[in-house]
C-alpha cells in the first residue's frame, strides 16, 4: 500500500558561486519521500547533505531541478541543525517553546507542552538553564525537543546525534524510533553512521563525494520495532557491509 509521495525531488543540482566557475555541491539528485517514511542520507563530509536539507526546508533554492510538495504546499517543518543552534539569551524552556510562541499559542499552554518535551529528552531540572551551561549533548537534545514541539509534518535532522556519547546516542535512537512510530511523522535524517542509519531508517540513500550524487538507494527491510539485538543479526550485517562497500 504505497501512498503518493509528499515530496518529490527531480534532477536537483546546486552550484555555489566561487572564484573559478562555481562549486558544484549536488549533482542531479532525484528521489521521492512518502508519508511516514524514515529516510537516511549517508555520505562523506562535503557531499552536500546539509545543502540538501536546506533546500528541502526552503532555506536555499536549487540551481537547477525541482522540488515538489504534495498539494504544492510547503509542509510544517521541524529541523535539527548540525550545531544545536540555540538562542543564547533564552533558557532551555524558552528555547524549546519558541516555535509555539511564533504560532501564537498562549504562554501557559506552551509551557506545559514544552515541559512534556523536556521530560521526553531527559532534561528535567534544566528548564531554567542557559545554553552556555549545557554540554554539547544536552544542547542537542534541547534542539531536538524544539524541532518536535510544534508537531511538524516533516522532520529534518542534520546529524542530530553527532555530539552525543555512544550510550546517550543509542538511547536517543530508541526515543526517536518511538516518537516516529507514535507520531507517524516523515523523517529525513543525515548521518555519518552506518549503524545509526540501519537502526532507524526504512531507506538509506548514499551520496558520493562532492559533487553529491545518489550512489545507492537501499531499502532497509529489518523488522520493527528494532532493538539493540537487531545489530547482531546476519541481515543487519549484510546491509551494513553493502553500505560500507558503497561508501568506500
Amino acid at each position, binding site marked *: 500500500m504505497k501512498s503518493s509521495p509528499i515530496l518529490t525531488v527531480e534532477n536537483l543540482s546546486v552550484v555555489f558561486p566561487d572564484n573559478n566557475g562555481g562549486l558544484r555541491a549536488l549533482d542531479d539528485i532525484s528521489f521521492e519521500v512518502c508519508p511516514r517514511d524514515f529516510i537516511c542520507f549517508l555520505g562523506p563530509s562535503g557531499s552536500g547533505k546539509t545543502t540538501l536539507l536546506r533546500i528541502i526546508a526552503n532555506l536555499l533554492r536549487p540551481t537547477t531541478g525541482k522540488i515538489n510538495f504534495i498539494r504544492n504546499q510547503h509542509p510544517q517543518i521541524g529541523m535539527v541543525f548540525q550545531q544545536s543552534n540555540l538562542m*543564547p*539569551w533564552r533558557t532551555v524552556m524558552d528555547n524549546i517553546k519558541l516555535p509555539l510562541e511564533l504560532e501564537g499559542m498562549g504562554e501557559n499552554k506552551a509551557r506545559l507542552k514544552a515541559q512534556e518535551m523536556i521530560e521526553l529528552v531527559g532534561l528535567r531540572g534544566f528548564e531554567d538553564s542557559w545554553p552556555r551551561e549545557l554540554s554539547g549533548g544536552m544542547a542537542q537534545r534541547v534542539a531536538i525537543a524544539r524541532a518536535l514541539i510544534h508537531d511538524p509534518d516533516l522532520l529534518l535532522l542534520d546529524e542530530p546525534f553527532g555530539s552525543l556519547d555512544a550510550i546517550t546516542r543509542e538511547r536517543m535512537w530508541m526515543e526517536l524510533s518511538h516518537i516516529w512510530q507514535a507520531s507517524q511523522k516523515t523523517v529525513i535524517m543525515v548521518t555519518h553512521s552506518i549503524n545509526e542509519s540501519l537502526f532507524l531508517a526504512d531507506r538509506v540513500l548514499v551520496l558520493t563525494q562532492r559533487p553529491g550524487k545518489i550512489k545507492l538507494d537501499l531499502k532497509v527491510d529489518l523488522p520493527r520495532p528494532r532493538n539493540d539485538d537487531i545489530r547482531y543479526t546476519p541481515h543487519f550485517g549484510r546491509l551494513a557491509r553493502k553500505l560500507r562497500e558503497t561508501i568506500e
Partner: protein
Amino acid sequence: MMIKNFLNRIPWLGILSLIAGWLAWTLISRFSGLPRFILPSPNDVWLSFIKSLMNGTLLYHTAITLIEVLLGMLAGVTFATIVGYALAKSRTLEKILSPYLVASQAIPIVAIAPLLVIWLGGGILSKVLICALIVFFPVLVNTVVGIRAVPSALYDLMHSIRATRWQILIKLEVPAALPVLLGGLRVGATLSVIGAIVGELVNAQDGLGYLLQLGDFQYDTSMVYVAVFMLIVLALMLYGMVTLLERKFLKWQQ
C-alpha cells in the same frame, strides 16, 4: 560574622583616598596663597552647594539639563537604531548614505552648536538636538554591527519555523544585537551630557551649563565647582542606568 561581612564590604581604601584628597585640597587652598576665585576651599564649595540646593536653583538647573539629555538620547537613539537597522539590511543604502554619515562625523559638534542655537533659539530644543546628534553616531554604528553579527544559522532556524519578518525582528534580531546596542548606549549617555553642556554654553537661560557660565562671569568659582560636580553626578547616573539595563537584559551573558 555579619558585622565582619559588612565591614569587609565597605571600600575602605576608596574612602581613605577621598579623605586624603579633601585634606590636601583644604591645605593647598589655605597655604598656597592662591585667591579664592582661582581655588576655593572645599568648605567654600560645600557652602555654595548647600546654598544653591536650599534656594532650589541647583535642582532646577540640573533638572533642565537632565531633561535635555534624556530627550536628546531618546531622539538620537530612536533615530539611530531605525537608520542603523536599515543600513545593516541594505548594502545599497549604506553606500548611498555613508558619505553623509562620515562627513557628519568629521564636523565637530562644538562647531555647529552655535548654528543650531541660531536656528532653533536659545531654548531647550537646540540642546536636545545637539544631544541627539552627538548620540546618533555611536548608536548607529553599534546597531549596524550588532544586526550584521546575528548568526545566519539562527535566521535559518527562524525561517524553518516560518517566522514572519516582525517575529524575526522581535525574537531574533533585537535580542541578538542588544549587547552591542547597549554598548553604544553607554558611550552615547556620556556624550549626551557633553552635548547638553556645549549647547548651554553657547546660549541658555538655564541648565548646568548656564550655571557654569554664570559662576564664571561673577567670579563665583565655588558655583562653577558645584556645577561641575553635578555634571559628574549626572553622567554617573546615566552610566548606572545603562548598567542596570545590561544587568536586566543580559543576564544570559553571566
